């Protein structure tokens, strides 16, 4: 009997923790969006964050984009060659990149690079009472700390995804045209004829959603570091929470990838 009540109590506390945590996440996003919309608007902090989240991610995005496109070129050629339709290689590479791989891989790379940094930065600020200090100085931490990151991610992500796609298509071109015997004209003509506006739309919506998820989850986990159940204290607390944030944001990106695809298909 004692065991049963113990399990019921455990179930109750787990449920409470779950709802409290997701409620807090929701409120965090709402507060950040309101903080973003409230004047006065400051441009410089947003530009600094665009530099951090966007410009500094360029190398990673270009490299992963290039090799993803090249792999798609290889695998695409192998598959299409079986059906004798290598003329579709350009379309296959472009569509997979634009609709799917571009947004997802770019988001995962940015989560690994910028999301982890955001979580650690905000978490350390929480840990060392710097966020309390902001509050006591009557400076809204959402406005000062979170809102510029949010806006910067919403601006940077679609642009990074565009670059990823373009570089990826070029990678596919390198492999298909220069390594194999696909004609350059056929590669681009196939792409031109088969890529439609809806593909680009889906890529754009995904990049926007993933940018939001990245900054939302990583900054919220850092911001509420002190409320972590297994103790968000010290360097270890920050590292543990950063890992959790990266995992949670990556999983969220894949889940939302499915949802957006299902809705927009």
């Amino acid at each position: 009997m004692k065991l049963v009540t113990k399990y019921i109590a455990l179930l109750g506390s787990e449920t409470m923790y779950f709802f409290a945590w997701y409620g807090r996440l929701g409120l965090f996003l709402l507060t950040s969006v309101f903080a973003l919309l409230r004047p006065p608007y400051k441009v410089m902090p947003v530009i600094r964050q665009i530099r951090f989240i966007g410009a500094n991610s360029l190398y990673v995005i270009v490299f992963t984009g290039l090799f993803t496109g090249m792999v798609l070129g290889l695998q695409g050629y192998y598959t299409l060659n079986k059906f004798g339709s290598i003329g579709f290689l350009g379309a296959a590479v472009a569509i997979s990149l634009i609709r799917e791989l571009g947004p997802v891989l770019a988001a995962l790379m940015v989560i690994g690079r910028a999301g982890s940094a955001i979580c650690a930065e905000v978490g350390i600020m929480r840990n060392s009472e710097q966020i309390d200090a902001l509050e006591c100085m009557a400076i809204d931490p959402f406005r000062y700390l979170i809102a510029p990151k949010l806006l910067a991610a919403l601006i940077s992500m679609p642009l990074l995804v565009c670059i990823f796609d373009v570089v990826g298509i070029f990678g596919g071109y390198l492999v298909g045209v220069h390594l194999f015997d696909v004609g350059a004209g056929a590669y681009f003509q196939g792409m031109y004829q088969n890529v439609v506006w809806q593909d680009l739309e889906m890529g754009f919506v995904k990049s926007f959603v993933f940018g939001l998820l990245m900054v939302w989850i990583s900054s919220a986990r850092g911001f509420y570091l002190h409320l972590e159940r297994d103790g968000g204290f010290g360097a270890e607390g920050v590292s543990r929470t950063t890992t959790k944030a990266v995992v949670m944001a990556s999983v969220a990106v894949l889940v939302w990838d499915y949802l957006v695809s299902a809705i927009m298909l």
Partner: protein
Amino acid sequence: MKQDKEIIIELKDVHKSFGSQKVLDGVNLQIPAGTTTVIVGASGQGKSVILKHMLGLLKPDSGQVRVFGHDLAQCNKADMQQIRSSFGVLFQNIALFDSMSVYDNVALPLRERTHSNEKQIRVAVEDKLALMGLEGQEDKFPAQLSGGMKKRVGLARALMLDPKVVFFDEPTTGLDVNKSNEIYRLFYRTQQQLNYTAVIVSHDVPKIFKLSDYVALMANSRLHGPLSPEVFQLSDNPLIRDFVLETMGPIYSSETEESLLYETL
């Protein structure tokens, strides 16, 4: 306590527990304008918890915390910001923004809360840094400063917008005698200049008594006092007497005990 002065901070029967640990058990305190109130007590008694209630960083389980006549529990975000805009806080661990230079740390309240241009900000910041004896340290980062210097930067930041109330959480902990005397001198000088109300949490007894108008002892989850420093040292309250004896030795406790001590010698 003098009744002619306006009460700016008032704690009424404040209770607070963390889990099963009761930290505040019916704390009452009134802080009149323009005075210096010192909260003393052994470590871990909840002195900083009282301070955090006054700052609105913690909410009481029951009871009221009123600042400038507003019940903090009833305040919305805007009211809270309004109240906090007349606060200055020197945190126990100082909570300087560690990725900003000394100059940017001190300039932050001006940048975020006023419409001053950079030229005005520079004049004001250099003025404050000079007052704290920190000329030439503008470009250093908090990690490059000694403990005493960090405290002075923290004090400069706290006093930047000429606050009405300044909270000091253990302002001299971890400093040697010279450095802590320097902080006290700066405190005295700035209070003469700016005429702010001060709330100090400290265990630097008896030195802190010289600066205080009222002293209260935090012990057994309750606040004993506030009393004037002279009355405090001669108090009959057994907890206060034990504290005074323990921290200052029997020679300060009372005339009767003093004579007793001489007799036994």
